[in-house]
């Protein structure tokens, strides 16, 4: 007769210390702590990132000093600088959300911890969310100075400053879900770094980090509409320029787009995570 039990291990002398489902947020918390401990040992990397961003800001300052935008509205040099910085802030806050889950898979492959993660009774989604939160917390260190600078430079009130943060959070949620989907591809194919590069190019060029999407050819505009960053940049600019900016659609539509994208990508990535795990386990991919 097999040692049957309704609770794991209770019929045996040596019951496991935990047999309960592990709460989602406990996995997130553990992962955040782990990632922050690792990042603490890579401080020069963070300094390098900060230096890179300062160079970009200086570049924006120089460029904007000799450009004037004449579209449906006219932006002077100072406003063009704000135009760049608003998009730049959105990007700093959420850019790593795309990379973090993939980096996590790569790090688990490198460190050989992937098998442990995938034979554990945890929510894998929580694990990836944890990596994004840890990265965001680290990125906040560089985000906050630039954010304060924007508030001061553009003379934003509390409501406008808060709206920009909210936009950043929504973009982060959508990007995290996209990042998790890319991590799934990394699980299946391993090499997805070049794909990430293409996506980043799209997010920079097509979503309108440097140019207003409304000025693009129609086909490119439709492509831009599928990217969460398009709405993030547009809304951030609207608030940073204190409403002196023609958004692509009315702002409530853009908020809706951003919210729907965040929810849609999250649901999709959660579903795909289960699918990919099943496929990997069935096909016997050597990764897990």
């Amino acid at each position, binding site marked *: 007769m097999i040692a049957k039990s309704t609770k794991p291990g209770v019929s045996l002398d040596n019951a496991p*210390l935990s047999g309960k489902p592990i709460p989602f947020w406990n996995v997130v918390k553990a992962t955040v702590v782990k990632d922050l401990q690792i990042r603490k040992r890579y401080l020069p990397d963070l300094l390098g990132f900060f230096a890179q961003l300062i160079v970009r800001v200086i570049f924006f300052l120089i460029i904007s000093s000799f450009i004037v935008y004449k579209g449906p509205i006219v932006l002077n040099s100072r406003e063009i600088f704000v135009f760049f910085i608003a998009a730049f802030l959105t990007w700093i806050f959420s850019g790593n959300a795309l990379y973090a889950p993939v980096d996590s898979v790569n*790090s688990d492959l490198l460190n050989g911890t992937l098998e*442990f993660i995938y034979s554990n009774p945890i929510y894998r989604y929580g694990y990836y969310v944890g990596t994004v939160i840890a990265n965001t917390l680290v990125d906040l260190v560089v985000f906050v100075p630039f954010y304060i600078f924007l508030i001061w430079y553009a003379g934003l009130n509390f409501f406008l400053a808060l709206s920009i943060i909210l936009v950043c959070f929504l973009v982060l949620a959508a990007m995290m879900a996209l990042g998790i989907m890319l991590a799934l591809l990394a699980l299946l194919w391993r090499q997805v770094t070049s794909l990430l590069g293409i996506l980043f190019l799209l997010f920079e060029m097509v979503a309108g980090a440097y140019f207003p999407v409304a000025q693009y050819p129609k086909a490119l505009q439709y492509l831009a509409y599928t990217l969460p960053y398009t709405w993030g940049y547009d809304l951030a600019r609207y608030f940073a320029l204190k409403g002196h900016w023609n958004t692509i659609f009315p702002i409530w539509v853009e908020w809706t787009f951003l919210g729907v994208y965040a929810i849609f990508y999250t649901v999709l990535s959660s579903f795909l995570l289960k699918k990919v795990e099943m496929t990997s386990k069935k096909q016997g991919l050597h990764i897990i």
Partner: protein
Amino acid sequence: MLLLSAQNVRKSYGKVVALQDVTLELHEKEILALLGTNGSGKTTLIKILATLLTKDSGKVEIMGYDLDTHESEIRHLFGYVGQDTEHSSYARLTVKENLQFFGKLRGLKKKQIDQQIEKLSAYFDFDSNLNKLFMHLSGGQKQTVVIIRALLHNPALIYLDEPTKGLDPIIAHKIRTFLKEYTSKEGKTILLTSHILTEVDELADRVVLFHGGNNLITDTPANLKRTVGAPEFIEIQAENLPAATFDKISKLETVLLHIEKDPKWISFGISDFFNGTEAIINILRDDGVHAGFRHRVVSLEDVFVYYLGGLTEKFEV
């Protein structure tokens, strides 16, 4: 009491069949070893049991839970030590930080984790390494961390896939001693694979021989050795043994079989040490043969070669 039961388990990767029809049972507080050639399906089976791979068909029950329907529950019940322990934890975390993270993913509270780390590291006298970065540990120390990790949540069942692979004999011995001591003290059950047959002989209560995705035979090491057909062997250096002398020795009443597992040595299985040895020495002396000569008792290596090597010749006397 039966802890794990696998019946008619099949698994293929595309056209490659890894497990054809595997059936095995694992009892509480038992150490069961899977023996087989490379690619015989041992690791695939362990990965299926560790929920890392899905089987194509068959039924697996672990402590009353069906693997197909209760994967989450089953994941609480076992500890798993995979093959690549050199890369098995976060290189830039300390041993303690790694174990705390892994423990949290097992649903343990900080206090429980600390108690378990203290208890398990005491077995290995490992306290002084807890604050070292994982990347600064030696191979044996890394393996120790992985074993501690597998035991953190006090699982009843432990899967060890070649636990002493690539380790020096002293560390390997230390790990074997720990496994024996820990399992007998704590009443754990172990499913183990290893190519180190002395290790299997030392640890295993029963052995399953794997070949081509099937389990050929399951028995205790002692019974398996008996099936080879000779309790002891006299080995003679092959290059100095003339064919005529070989024939004479083969025809001796006390010689039951010969195995050529090593091209340099021919092993004659004998039924009786004194009479067998004396008769062989007499023939060598009469024929004027000067050859290396040694005696050994039957080992699991003989069992392995006998069943899986295809090098055995059994003959009637």
